[in-house]
């Protein structure tokens, strides 16, 4: 499923826009990484695409205007996994992942074996079968990420929006999370947009990157064109070195003061 965003402007308070005339296009099955310093508008852009914040400008999925879609139909096309998902204590991993089936159920309906099968397959894909009966409140950081992602997969939407999928994870867990996401993409023809923080990983996983700063698009293209010393100095105020790895690039911060 393709995503086209045109002239998207969003503000939480009048006169203080968080996004200014942002446009982007993601083709079916493509993975776009959203970069930008804190406060650049990455999360707001994802939420606007998911229809969760009011905005001006157009969002279309496979050419269909998102604003014309009922919320439940939209939720079958777009799954949004927030940066810090709320996990109600006492709920099991299976119950939580089954919440992803909500858009497939009528207002007062309940789950069928088909919904359980979708949840089970998501658990399987993310290697969570062993945790199915566990209380979500007792999960580790990496397990929480995978569980939240499993809920998004159970939604069986063509578009997956992930806000900081490596947030609060250590280097191994973060790498593992992105490998998982990469393997999901090999299993399912899903279009992905991920807001990313970790510039060591961002240049290696998505197909294409888009750099936001102060609510505007400032650069877009393959990793080698977006993750440059100049852009990172200008928009992150960081001194870095760019290392070519795995056909992508990794950003390494450099100490400026004397030792």
């Amino acid at each position, binding site marked *: 499923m393709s995503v086209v965003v045109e002239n998207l402007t969003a503000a939480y308070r009048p006169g203080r826009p968080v996004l200014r005339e942002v446009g982007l296009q993601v083709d079916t099955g493509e993975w776009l990484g959203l970069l930008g310093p804190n406060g650049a508008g990455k999360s707001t852009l994802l*939420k606007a695409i*998911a*229809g*969760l914040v009011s905005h001006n400008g157009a969002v279309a999925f496979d050419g269909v205007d998102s604003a014309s879609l*009922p*919320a*439940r*139909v*939209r*939720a*079958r096309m777009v*799954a*949004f996994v*927030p940066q810090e*998902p*709320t*996990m*109600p*204590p*006492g*709920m*099991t991993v*299976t*119950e939580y992942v*089954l*919440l*992803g089936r*909500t*858009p497939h*159920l009528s*207002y*007062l*309906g*309940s*789950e069928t*074996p088909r*919904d*359980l099968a979708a949840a089970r397959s998501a658990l399987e894909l993310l290697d969570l079968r062993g945790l*199915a*009966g*566990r209380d979500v409140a007792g999960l580790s950081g990496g397990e929480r990420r995978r569980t939240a992602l499993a809920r998004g997969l159970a*939604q069986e939407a063509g578009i997956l929006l992930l806000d900081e999928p490596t947030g609060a994870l250590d280097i191994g867990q973060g790498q593992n999370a992105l490998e998982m996401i990469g393997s999901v993409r090999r299993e399912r023809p899903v279009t992905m947009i991920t807001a990313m923080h970790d510039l060591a990983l961002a240049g290696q996983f998505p197909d294409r990157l888009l750099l936001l700063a102060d609510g505007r698009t400032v650069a877009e293209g393959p990793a080698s064109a977006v993750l440059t010393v100049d852009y990172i100095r200008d928009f992150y105020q960081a001194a870095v070195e760019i290392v070519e790895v795995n056909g992508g690039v990794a950003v390494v911060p450099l100490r400026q003061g004397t030792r």
Partner: protein
Amino acid sequence: MTTGPPSGLEAVRLRWGWMGAALGLLAASALAGIVIGPAGLDPRQVIGELVGGGQTSLSETHRAILWEIRLPRVVLGGLVGGLLSLAGASYQGIFRNPLADPYLLGVAAGGGLGATAVIALIPSADPRLLPLAAFAGALAAVVLTYAVGRSMGGRSAVSLILAGVAVAAFFTALQTFLLQRNADTIRQVYSWILGQLSTTGWGEVAILVPYAAVCGTALVLHRRLLDVMSVGDEEADSLGVSSARVRGAVVVFATLATAAAVSVSGLIAFVGLVVPHTVRLVVGVSYRSLVPISAVTGAAFLILADLAARTAASPAELPIGVVTAFIGAPFFMAVLRTTRRYVA
């Protein structure tokens, strides 16, 4: 065979085993409520009369006590307790607040004001108007509590309850003012404020039944959506559920349930807090089980509380609100301790 917690669809279905236990408790409580009293009735004869429908060995007097005094009172207690517990469980889900309770949210006080206004200002009014008047007051109270609680800054469970305390105080003051201006009705309203289930036959039950049917059905049907709401408004919206619409619907039905209960029985505190919390400890956090099992357990709880109110100081009768507060207030303190983490 699997071991450990359920991981299939049974995890998200009503837990019928516990529902059966709750129904058993309700049946036992109802029987106790019927047979115990100044004139003891024989349980076997009572069961025979209820099941067999007439051809039994009960004396005429005992039969009259059963059908005209005990049974209406037990049914009324069950309906009121069920409605208050249903409302409490629903408020806890929809406000994502473990402290939510019809009494603590100010809903009961709002209902009380609405009903008092009718009793004091329109003495000739049809008693069937009372639930509607109570509903108007109760809805005003819950909307005000929610608005004030949110404006106090959001996520804390305690801010909602503080708002509820303020709203309840305000509505109670208005109610007192009304009473002072209409002193001739003060006795009638005062006994009602304390909570009472004393009935005159089946009249109150008949008033309550339609509300119980409508609210019970609506809230039980919303129980899956209460689980969805537990991840927060934004995530519920991202799952295609309109959180505002669900909250509106659940608040209206929970408030109508509270108002109907309050309008026939007065302010009975803490039932909506004690019962869902206890049930949650046993059946888990999912509202799929919590809502219906709380309703049944609440019915049993109030029948037993009424039995205590009738017999503890016999022949005098304690107001049932005193009994439930006696159990509920310490319970509330205990819950408050375990929810300290929500306060910050």
